[in-house]
């Protein structure tokens, strides 16, 4: 990938939000700016990823709560691509976890939709210039979330370490929604054995029903909810 930043060139912006109003507002403000150019708009995550890969904008203005792929996931995939596009998160979500995740996936800035349009444009400019746009308060929130993140990691590790490799396989299949018989077939074991494994898993997860097991496993991050 060749660097295409030319100091004098205009900042190419891609805007992603599922609300047309927000897109139009940001778009209009960028168009009125002498050194900005809006190269595209998207209303969902999958489209955003596709456009971003194709157009390689300088700045991606990214909402987090968007359909099909959430904003964090879009950013994560771009990061995996080694994309040079700088990401300015623009969202209504101001919870600790969102700020933390945004920092983790390499976002260059975090703006809230309650900010004035002048602020948002200034943030796009700053991000384009390579400045990180996070407030002290946002950094504090992210740090605070690190404690929760560590706690969850610890709980997950503890439960996982207590499961045998076989039990982990079984839990994975429970998460896929398979019945006991289907699990037994898939793992080439008797139904009786599968039942025993499931019983042991319930005990280790401290739950009584399959639904509870699923929730608990999802809460621990052992299985992902699609």
């Amino acid at each position, binding site marked *: 990938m060749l660097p295409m930043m030319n100091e004098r060139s205009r900042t190419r912006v891609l805007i992603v939000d599922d609300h047309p109003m927000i897109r139009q507002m940001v778009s209009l403000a960028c168009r009125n700016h002498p050194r900005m150019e809006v190269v595209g708009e998207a209303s969902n995550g999958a489209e955003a990823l596709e456009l971003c890969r194709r157009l390689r904008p300088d700045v991606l203005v990214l909402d987090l709560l968007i359909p099909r792929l959430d904003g964090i996931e879009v950013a994560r995939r771009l990061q995996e691509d080694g994309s040079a596009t700088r990401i300015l998160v623009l969202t209504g979500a101001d919870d600790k976890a969102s700020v933390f995740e945004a920092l983790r996936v390499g976002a260059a800035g975090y703006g809230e939709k309650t900010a004035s349009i002048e602020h948002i444009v200034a943030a796009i400019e700053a991000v384009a210039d390579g400045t990180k746009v996070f407030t002290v308060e946002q950094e504090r929130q992210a740090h605070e979330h*690190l404690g929760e993140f560590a706690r969850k990691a*610890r709980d997950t590790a503890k439960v996982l*370490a207590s499961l045998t490799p076989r039990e982990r396989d079984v839990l994975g299949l429970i998460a896929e929604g398979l019945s006991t018989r289907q699990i037994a077939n898939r793992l080439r074991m008797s139904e009786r054995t599968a039942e025993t494994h499931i019983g042991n898993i319930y005990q280790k997860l401290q739950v009584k029903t399959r639904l509870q097991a699923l929730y608990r496993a999802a809460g621990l991050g052992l299985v992902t909810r699609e």
Partner: protein
Amino acid sequence: MQTPMPGESGELRLLPPTIGVIVVDGFPVVGAALTLLIEAEPDLKVLASASSARETLEAVRRLSRRSGVVAVVGLNIEGEENSYWLIRRIRDDFPRLPILAIGSNGDPMAVSRALFFGTDGYLHKSAGPEVFLEAIRRTAQREVVLEGLPSDWLVPIAEGIDVQKEWASRLTDREQQVLTVAAQGLTARQIGSRLGVRERTVTTHLSRIYKKLGAEGRVHAIDRAARSGLISLRGQ
């Protein structure tokens, strides 16, 4: 003077609460210096000071009924019952006691490890006295305190926690303990007598550990575990 309310818990207090501090550092001189600093504050009081994990656990147990207590733990206690082991023990046995780790390590993994093992915060020793004292107060409020660290460490610290999780989820506590002792170069028999189990049990643990870590033998397993921060080698 107001009469304290009777009650077995000893938690009922009428005066604005003083924060009680348990000071732990591998170097008693450092512990003494921290104690002086803390004692100069009207709202903070050192309840106990310790330089080993055992002493600390004893103090924590003794003070377990008291509220408003914070443990300040230096990460420089070495060996089998090192600072991280201590943190894990406190976290398991006294989940409500806030812990503030203090360290001088220049590596984000040390912070990841401390948080993963169960501290509520981490203060780098380069932080000034006021920051240190304020960190104790904030920790007492169960705030996550990270001070004296470069702000761009957040991502590597989070990644380090993921690495810790990955490794720790492969080995049970017992297996981690066996591996830690094995890292000191003891024979299976010596490990057994150290942990109070039979030699045969130790070899079973070890072969399971090798398998789980995808290692070919003891040196390989220890190397992999040490690199990932799962265990720390003496003198590091």
